């Protein structure tokens, strides 16, 4: 065997190994979700699958349905507010040579360096004063604060990659700045903005710490709900797994969507 083939096989072997390590817990979670309580701790793959775990988690006292709704609303509203704002901000950062632009951008990014645990208490006190504890609004506000800088940074990357030539041409052709954004920039940045939206959704959907501290009963989200399966009677692994599946599946679907769009460039053909 020559060197090239050895490398080829070596590469595959490493890829397979890493995939197994990453995928195994997820596979195990999926299996456990369909097991009966008595099988939950067994390593055997020989069990009779059941959907009863899903029925259980959606009924009293777990009421996973409410949490799905909370998570969905919080994540969607966050995306709907964050992405349009971030797109405009990203465009401005990318195109306008304003004094202090770099510093401002650094400030925005620096919010990402602050560990969440450090600011969770101030947020708690603030929302308690405002009477917004245990509400979706509080979660949306917090998530916006966390996610928007990140999305600005991400979308700016996509807009930076679009040549300005087409925009200039549109301005000469008679378009105002807003019209340029609508007709030229948004369509060209669409795959990037979509990718960022999904990223933003995933971040919000998975957010745990703030949701844990700021909610108690009404606004509990899925990741926090997961913890409630650790009871005094022990950890209810099969129920936790079923809830885990409910969290994971939407994200899986979105990841697939992103992948399709990641590969598509929209700027080809604009310039020489």
């Amino acid at each position: 065997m020559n060197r090239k083939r050895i490398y080829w096989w070596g590469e595959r072997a490493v890829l397979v190994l890493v995939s197994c390590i990453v995928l195994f817990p997820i596979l195990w979670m999926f299996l456990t979700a369909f097991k009966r309580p008595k099988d939950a701790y067994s390593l055997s793959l020989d069990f009779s699958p059941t959907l009863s775990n899903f029925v259980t988690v959606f009924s009293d006292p777990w009421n996973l349905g409410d949490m799905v709704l909370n998570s969905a609303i919080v994540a969607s509203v966050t995306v709907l507010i964050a992405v349009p704002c971030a797109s405009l901000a990203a465009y401005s950062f990318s195109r306008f040579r304003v004094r202090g632009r770099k510093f401002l951008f650094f400030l925005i990014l620096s919010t990402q360096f602050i560990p969440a645990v450090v600011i969770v208490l101030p947020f708690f006190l603030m929302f308690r004063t405002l009477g917004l504890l245990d509400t979706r609004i509080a979660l949306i506000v917090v998530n916006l604060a966390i996610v928007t800088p990140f999305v600005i940074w991400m979308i700016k990357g996509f807009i930076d990659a679009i040549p300005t030539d087409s925009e200039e041409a549109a301005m000469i052709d008679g378009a105002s700045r807003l019209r340029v954004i609508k007709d030229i920039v948004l369509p060209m940045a669409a795959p990037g903005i979509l990718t960022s939206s999904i990223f933003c959704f995933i971040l919000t959907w998975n957010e745990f710490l703030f949701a844990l501290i700021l909610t108690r009963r009404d606004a509990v989200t899925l990741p926090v709900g997961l913890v409630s399966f650790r009871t005094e009677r022990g950890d209810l692994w099969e129920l936790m797994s079923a809830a885990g599946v409910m969290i994971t599946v939407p994200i899986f679907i979105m990841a697939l969507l992103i992948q399709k769009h990641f590969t598509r460039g929209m700027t080809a053909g604009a310039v020489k």
Partner: protein
Amino acid sequence: MAEVQLVDVEKRYGDFLAVTRQNLTIKDGEFLVLLGPSGCGKTTTMRMIAGLEEITAGNLLFAGERVNDKAPKDRDIAMVFQNYGLYPHMTVADNIGYPLKLRGVDRKTRTARVQETAEKVELGALLKRRPSELSGGQRQRVALARAIVRTPKIFLMDEPLSNLDAKLRVTMRAELKHLHHELGVTTVYVTHDQMEAMTLAHRVAVMREGRIVQLDTPKNIYSEPADLFVASFIGSPPMNLIDGRISGGRFEAPGVSLPVEATDRDKVVMGIRPEDLELTDPASAPISGRVYALELTGDSTLVTLREQGSSICARGPADFEAAINTSCGLAPKPGARTHLFDKDSGQRIDA
């Protein structure tokens, strides 16, 4: 339609002076060609007129009105960009029709107008494609069509035909000439192609390092270049420039001795165009040398002679033949122009 005036217009990028105190009046309805080597500031000048580049100092006037701070969209300009600037997500038809769409032209009129314009640039069959599915020359024609689809006050064209094949270039050149005759829109046009400059321009501005060195009709630029730079830049093959001196009413250089009407001085460069020279008997010729190369160009032969390391080129008849290294003579044709320049300053010396 408007007169365009640049008054002491300057453009700096940081410390770098891209355009230096430009003063230029483009008359209403005039076709002005900007000519100059790469990087001399042609595109920058155009972009300032278009409003895409901030003017560092000076004033820009359209029909007497200062427009420095006017947004590009309010200047009523159409522009062909050097690198096209097409809309990659739109079809060719939508690209061409976009300026009309922005002006609220209804769909039916728009479609007709787009079709008509596309025919002019020979793109009629490609209207449904996207820019990424076109060749370079086709993209360039889309950019051209988008500019001429409507009648603006000013046309700005930055090398609009640079990527077309020779035949198409001639066709498009005629198309542009006709369009200008028909509409009479003030036009600023950048090109590296001298034929384009000569055939299209009312006046040519030759630029160098951010300055206009000569602004005149194509004929005058050709027949009376203001300095060595213009002399060597205009004409193909370029003008012969021979270092020498004037003594006793004759220009003297190795292998060259020609009567001139000028006072005696050293450090003179004489310029004479290849087409102003003819082949003569070597014995009595004012210019002589050995044949270095013969190049048949179709309707004529370019003959290059060498004498003591300096070469001189002449345009001879197509059927001219001579062996390499045989000696050969040249003389100015009757009525031909010779040009004298000061070697140090490069300026033209007028008799």
